[in-house]
C-alpha cells in the first residue's frame, strides 16, 4: 500500500487553548481491495460520487415526469428534436463504453500502447458526441427554440446540457490519462490501471444516463 500526505496543514488545538497546532492527514492509496469495503479506495470514492450523481439526475428525471404529467399538452420529442443525430450519438456513446473497457483490459495485460490507443478512441468518441450535440443546439437556436421557450425545451436543454458537461469532464480526464497522467505507468502500473478503471466507471455512468435520456426526451 502506498500513501500520500496532504501538505495543507489542518489547525488543531495544541492543548493550551490555542488552535495554532498542525496535524497532517494521511489518505492511503490502496491498490488492492480493502477487507472492510471490498474495494480499493479510489473505487469506493467514485461510487460515492456516482451515488450523488444518481440523486442529481434522479431529481431532474422526477422533475420532467412531474412537469409532463401535470401539463395540459406536451410536445412529442420525435416531432421537435433531431432523431437521426441523437441515434448517432447513442451509438457513439455505446461504442465509447466498449473502447474504454478495451483500454482497461489492455492495461491489465500490460500493453500501455494499446491502452492509450483505445483511450484516445474513447476521447474522440466524446468529442464526436459534443460536436453532434452542438450542431443540434445550433439548429434549435436558429429555429428560436431556447430554454425559455417552454417547459419541454427547458427540460431538454437542462438535462442534455448537464449531461454534456459530464461528457466534457470525462474527456478532460481521458486527455490527462493519455498525456501527462500516463507517466504514472512507469512507476506504478497498478495505480495507473486503477485510475483508468475508475474513469471507465464514471464514463459508463455518463453513457447510462444518455441511454435513459434518449428514449424519454426524444421518443416519448
Amino acid at each position, binding site marked *: 500500500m502506498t500513501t500520500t500526505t496532504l501538505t495543507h496543514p489542518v489547525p488543531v488545538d495544541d492543548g493550551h487553548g490555542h488552535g495554532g497546532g498542525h496535524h497532517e492527514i494521511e489518505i492511503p492509496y490502496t491498490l488492492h481491495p480493502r477487507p472492510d469495503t471490498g474495494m480499493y479506495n479510489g473505487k469506493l470514492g467514485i461510487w460515492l460520487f456516482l451515488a450523488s450523481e444518481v440523486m442529481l439526475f434522479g431529481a431532474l428525471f422526477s422533475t420532467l415526469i412531474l412537469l409532463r404529467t401535470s401539463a395540459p399538452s406536451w410536445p412529442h420529442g420525435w416531432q421537435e428534436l433531431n432523431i437521426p443525430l441523437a441515434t448517432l450519438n*447513442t451509438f457513439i456513446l455505446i461504442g465509447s*463504453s466498449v473502447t474504454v473497457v478495451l483500454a482497461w*483490459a489492455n492495461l491489465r495485460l500490460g500493453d500501455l500502447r494499446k491502452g492509450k490507443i483505445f483511450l484516445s478512441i474513447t476521447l474522440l468518441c466524446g468529442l464526436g458526441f459534443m460536436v453532434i450535440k452542438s450542431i443540434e443546439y445550433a439548429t434549435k437556436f436558429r429555429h428560436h427554440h431556447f430554454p425559455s421557450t417552454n417547459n419541454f425545451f427547458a427540460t431538454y436543454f437542462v438535462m442534455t446540457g448537464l449531461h454534456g458537461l459530464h461528457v466534457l469532464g470525462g474527456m478532460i480526464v481521458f486527455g490527462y490519462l493519455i498525456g501527462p497522467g500516463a507517466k504514472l505507468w512507469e512507476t506504478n502500473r497498478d495505480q495507473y490501471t486503477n485510475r483508468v478503471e475508475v474513469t471507465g466507471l464514471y464514463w*459508463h455512468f455518463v453513457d447510462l444516463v444518455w441511454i435513459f435520456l*434518449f428514449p424519454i426526451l426524444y421518443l416519448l
Partner: protein
Amino acid sequence: MSLRAFHIVFIVVSVMLSLYVGVWGVRQYRIEGTTGALAFGVIFLLAAVALVIYGMNVVRKFRELP
C-alpha cells in the same frame, strides 16, 4: 462493483433500450407508414442482436483477464 460487472450491466441496459426503440420504430411505421421509422426500428433491432452477441463474447473474454 468492478468495471467488468458495470460494463455487463451497461450492455444489458443497452440491449433493453435497443429493443424498446426497435419496437417503437416498427409501431411508428404501422401508424405513419413512413419507411424512415421502419429503418430506424430495424437498425435498433439489429443493434440489439449485435449487442447480445458482443455481450456473450465479452463475458468469455473477461474470464481470461488476470
